[in-house]
C-alpha cells in the first residue's frame, strides 16, 4: 500500500503541458503569429471569426465485450465452413450475410451481420473501414510466448473491469493509468481557446478514456448540459438560493472530499451557462436522428461540433458508451436487436457531419472490453481477447480492412483455447494512428501511448496502420516547449478560476 498511488503520474512523463496559450485554431501552426501575439483578448477576438483547423475523435464504446466475429463474418464457401464449424449454434446463416468487397480481401470473402445495412453502404462508399483482431497487448506475443510466459500478458486478461480499463488507457501492464484521450488533452488541451470547458466531452458519465493527469472530461446528456433550477432567477427566492449557493461553494473547505464536491458543483454550474448558450444559438440540424438513446447521444455530439466556434474548440474528443454486449446468453437475438441501433446511429451521425461540412475533420471509432470466444457455451459466448472494430469518417480510407482477419478454426496459431484469439494488432497501434491524425506530434506520441515503441517507431515516415489520411499538421513542432501549465480542466469544473490549493 505504501505509496502505490504516487507512482501514478510519473512513469507517463506528463509533467509538462505544451503551451500554446489561447491561440485560435487558425493561428495554430503559424509561428509568426504566435510569436507576436500572446494576448488573451486578441485571440478570443480572432477565434470568433476563424473557420480554421478543427478535428474531433468520437469513441463509441461497446460495454460488455461485443461479439464482433458475428459482426464481420467470413462468407466464402471454405471460410464460412470454418466459421460455422467453430461457432456452431452461434453461426449466422451464410445466406443472410450482407456482402461487402474490401479493397484488400486477404484471399477471403466477407459479409456483415444482416441487420447493419447502413454500415454496408458506408463501407461501399469508402467512409468506413474495419480494423480486425485488435486488442490489448503489453508487447508483441505469440502463442508459444503466451504459454511459456516469455511475453507479458495484459493484467486481468478476459476480465471486464481490467480490459475496459486497458482499452481506455492502452497501458495494459498497469492498473492505475490515465486514459489516452486524457493524456492527449494534457498535451494538446491548451490549443482550445476555451479553457472553461474540457477538450473531452462525455455523453456517458465518468470514464477512464478521457481522464488525463491534468485533464478531465465534461459530462453532458443527449439533451445537452444541465443547469441548476432557479439559479440566477429574478425572484427573491431565487436570489437567496443563488447567493447562498455561491457563498457555500466559495468556502475554503478543510476536508478534501468537501472541497472536491464544491468544485464539481461550481464547475457544473458555470460550464452549463456557457455551453447551453452556445447550443441554444445553433440553427437546427437537418439530419434526422432516430429516437434511440445512441442516436440521440450522437445528435448531441453533432450539435456540440456544430457549436465548435462559439465554444472556442479546435480539438475535441467525445465518448459514448453503449452497454449490454456481454452476451453469455442469447447472443443471436440480442445482436439482432442491438446492431440495427448502432448501424442507424453511425449512419445518421455521418450524414450530420456531411451536412456540417466537417466529415473530413471528424473520425469515429469503436472500442470494447474484448472480443468473445469463437466457441459457444450453448447459448452465447464468453470473454475473450482480440476483436474487430469500426473506423468511420471522411478522412478514413474506407472500404477496406486493416490488421489481419484471423483464422477461426480451433487450435490455430492465435488460439489460446476456446477461440480466445491473441490480437494481431495492439490497441497502441490503433490509437497511435488516431492520435497522429488528431494532431499529436510524433515526438509526443510516447506521452500519449507510453508503450508505443514496442509496436511502432514514432519517427517512422509510414503511419502505424494507414487507416486515416495523414494529419494536415501536427501541433508538436509548431510551438515552443516548456511553458507553464495554465487552465487545466478540472473534473467537470470551469477552468482557471479560483480552485484554492492548500
Amino acid at each position, binding site marked *: 500500500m505504501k505509496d502505490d498511488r504516487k507512482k501514478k503520474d510519473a512513469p507517463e512523463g506528463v509533467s509538462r503541458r505544451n503551451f500554446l496559450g489561447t491561440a485560435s485554431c487558425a493561428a495554430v501552426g503559424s509561428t509568426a503569429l504566435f510569436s507576436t501575439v500572446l494576448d488573451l483578448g486578441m485571440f478570443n477576438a480572432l477565434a470568433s471569426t476563424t473557420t480554421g483547423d478543427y478535428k474531433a475523435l468520437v469513441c463509441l464504446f461497446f460495454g460488455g465485450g461485443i461479439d464482433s466475429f458475428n459482426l464481420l463474418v467470413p462468407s466464402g464457401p471454405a471460410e464460412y465452413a470454418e466459421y460455422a464449424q467453430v461457432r456452431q449454434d452461434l453461426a449466422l446463416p451464410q445466406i443472410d450475410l450482407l456482402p461487402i468487397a474490401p479493397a484488400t480481401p486477404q484471399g477471403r470473402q466477407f459479409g456483415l451481420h444482416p441487420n447493419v445495412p447502413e454500415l454496408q453502404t458506408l463501407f461501399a462508399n469508402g467512409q468506413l473501414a474495419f480494423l480486425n483482431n485488435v486488442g490489448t497487448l503489453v508487447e508483441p506475443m505469440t502463442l508459444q510466448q503466451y504459454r511459456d510466459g516469455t511475453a507479458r500478458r495484459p493484467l486481468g486478461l478476459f476480465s471486464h473491469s481490467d480490459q475496459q480499463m486497458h482499452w481506455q488507457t492502452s497501458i495494459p501492464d498497469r492498473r492505475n493509468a490515465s486514459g489516452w484521450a486524457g493524456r492527449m488533452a494534457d498535451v494538446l488541451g491548451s490549443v482550445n481557446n476555451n479553457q472553461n470547458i474540457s477538450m473531452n466531452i462525455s455523453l456517458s458519465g465518468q470514464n477512464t478514456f478521457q481522464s488525463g493527469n491534468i485533464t478531465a472530461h465534461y459530462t453532458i446528456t443527449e439533451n445537452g448540459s444541465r443547469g441548476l433550477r432557479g439559479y440566477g432567477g429574478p425572484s427573491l427566492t431565487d436570489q437567496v438560493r443563488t447567493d447562498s449557493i455561491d457563498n457555500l461553494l466559495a*468556502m475554503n473547505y478543510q476536508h478534501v472530499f468537501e472541497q472536491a464536491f464544491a468544485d464539481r458543483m461550481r464547475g457544473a454550474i458555470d460550464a452549463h451557462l456557457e455551453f447551453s448558450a452556445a447550443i441554444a444559438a445553433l440553427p437546427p440540424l437537418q439530419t434526422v436522428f432516430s429516437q434511440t438513446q445512441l442516436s440521440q447521444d450522437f445528435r448531441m455530439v453533432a450539435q456540440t461540433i456544430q457549436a465548435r466556434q462559439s465554444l472556442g474548440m479546435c480539438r475535441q474528443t467525445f465518448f459514448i458508451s453503449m452497454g449490454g454486449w456481454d452476451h453469455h446468453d442469447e447472443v443471436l437475438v440480442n445482436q439482432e436487436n442491438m446492431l440495427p441501433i448502432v448501424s442507424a446511429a453511425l449512419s445518421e451521425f455521418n450524414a450530420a457531419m456531411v451536412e456540417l461540412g466537417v466529415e473530413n475533420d471528424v473520425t469515429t471509432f469503436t472500442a470494447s472490453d474484448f472480443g468473445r470466444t469463437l466457441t459457444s457455451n450453448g447459448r452465447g459466448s464468453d470473454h475473450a481477447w482480440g476483436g474487430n472494430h469500426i473506423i468511420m469518417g471522411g478522412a478514413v480510407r474506407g472500404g477496406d480492412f486493416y490488421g489481419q482477419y484471423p483464422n477461426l478454426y480451433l487450435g490455430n496459431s492465435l488460439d489460446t483455447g476456446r477461440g480466445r484469439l491473441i490480437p494481431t494488432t495492439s490497441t497502441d497501434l490503433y490509437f497511435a494512428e488516431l492520435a497522429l491524425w488528431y494532431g499529436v506530434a510524433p515526438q509526443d506520441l510516447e506521452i500519449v501511448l507510453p508503450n508505443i515503441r514496442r509496436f511502432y517507431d514514432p519517427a517512422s515516415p509510414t503511419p502505424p496502420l494507414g487507416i486515416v489520411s495523414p494529419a494536415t499538421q501536427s501541433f508538436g513542432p509548431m510551438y515552443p516547449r516548456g511553458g507553464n501549465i495554465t487552465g487545466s480542466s478540472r473534473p467537470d469544473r470551469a477552468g482557471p478560476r479560483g480552485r484554492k490549493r492548500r
Partner: protein
Amino acid sequence: MAVAFAVIAASCGTLLAQSQEPLTPRRASRFLAQATLGADWEEIQRATQLGLEGWLDDQFQQPIGYHEPPLQAIENRGVVLDSAIRRAVWWEQVMESPDLLRQRVALALSEIYVISDNVTAVDDNVLGTANYYDMLLSHSFGNFRDLLRDVSLHPIMGAYLSHLRNERSDPSRGRFPDENYAREVMQLFSIGLFELNIDGTLQRDGNGNAIPTYDNDDITEFAKIFTGLSFDSAFPDFRNGLPVWDRPMEMYPPYHEPGPKFLLRGNFVPASQTGLEDVESAIDNLFQHPNVGPFLARRLIQRMVTSNPSPAYIRRVAEAFNNNGNNVRGDMKAVVRAVLLDPEARTWPTAAVSFEGRLRESFLRRVHLARAFNAANLTNDFPIDDRSAPVNFGQRPMSSPTVFNFFLPDHQPQGDIGDRGLYAPEFQIITAVTAIASADDLESQITSGMNRAPLNPLAVVRLDLSDEIALAPNVTALIDRLDLLMTYGNMSGQMRQILVENLSRLSDPGERAQMALYLISISPEYAVIQ
C-alpha cells in the same frame, strides 16, 4: 498514503477513550448516519438513551422487514406487479420497518452482490428480485458462507450472471461451460484479484509484484462446477421447466460437468461427488480463503463508514470475520459490530485538513431526507417515483449499470483526492450532470413531494417539515435543528453564518424552512459524512 494514515493512528488512542464517553445526540446522529439509511429526531433521541451497544443489541433482535411478502400481498389483490411496484415496496420497508441496521447492511450487500433490473430477466421477475433482496436481508446478520451459497444458487443471480441453465461441456459440438459466474464469484464476491494480507494490503512476490489469486484455468474449472443448475420446477426440466424465481436453483445431474475439478489453493473435488456437493465444496473453498475477511471488511467499511480505512481498521474487522470470539468464521453480526464500533469509525472529525469518512451515496441523500423528515402520504403507501433516479443520481437500488456496481472500491477522483492517493468511490457518479440533477431532484422532494402528479392527489408523498416550520421564525433555532438531523451537529461556523444571513431575507416560515433544508442537502458539508 502512509503519511495520511499516521494522522488516524495518532488520534486513535485518545479517541478510543472518547468512544466510551456518554453518547450525546450529535454523536448518536453521526453514528446513525453510518448505521442506518437515515434517522429522524426520535431515533436520535432513542439511540442517545440506549447507547451504541444497546442500540445495536436492540437492532440485532428486530424482526426482519422482508420485501417479498408485501409484494405478494399486492399481487394477491389482482394487481399485475412491475418493477415500479417493487420499488414502492422497497421504500415502504425502508421507511417503516424497525430493522434499520439490517436494511442498511442489506443495501450495502446489494452493492457488492450486484443484480440489476437493467437486465430484463431481473426487471420482469419482480417477486424473484424481491426474494433475492430478502435473502440479503436474512443473511445480513447471519453467516457469510450461507450468504455466498445462497447468492450463488439464487435464480435471479443465475439469470443475471448466466449460470442458470449452464450446461456441461460438449466437446463434440465445441461447447464449453459459461464462465461468467465462475469469474465474478471470485473477483467480486469473495476473494478479489490478488492475494491480500489480513490488513487488506497486497502480498508481493520476490519481484515486488502482486500475486494473482486465480488464473483463467481456475475459471474454467469453477465454470464446470456451476453447471447443471436450473429452476426448481414442479415438473423438473432443465431446459424448459417453468421458471420458479423464489426458490434456489436445483441441480440437474445429466447437465452437470462430470469428473473431478480443481479448486483454488491445491484443492479439488473428486469425481464421485454430486453436483450440489461440488457447489458446496467450491463455496467452502472460497469461504476458507484468507482473502475473504479483508476483502469483505474493506467493502463494508467503505459502504458504511469511510472510503479510506487504515490497514489496522481492516485488520480488526477481518479478524472479527475470521473469528467472532467463539471460533465461528464468517459471523456477519460480529463483522457489522466491528465495522461500526471500531475506534476509527467512532473518531469525532478533526478540524484539520482531513479526508476521514465518505461521500454520501448520491441516491441515499434522497432516502435520508425521506427518513429524517418522515415522508408520508394520506394513502399510507409509498408510490414514490424513482424513474429519473438513474439519470439524476446516477444510482437506484438494484439498477446498477453492471455487476461492478455504480462505483468501484478503488475509484480515485482526479485532483486533490487522487493526488493524495485516496479512494472515493462515490465520486465516480458525481458528474456535471448528476451534481446538478440530483440537487434539482432534492429540491423537488422538499418543495413538491416524491412522486410527481399521481392520479390520486392524496398519494403525494411529502416530507413533514412541521417542526422546522414552527421553528423557522427563529433562524438560528431552525439551523440548530437541521444541523443535528443533517450534519450531526458538525456544521461549520462559516456555513451557519451564510445560511443565517441569506435565510433571514425570506419571511415566510414555510419557504424559509424548505430553503434551509434544500441548501443544507446540496452543501459540501452535508455531502460528506466525516
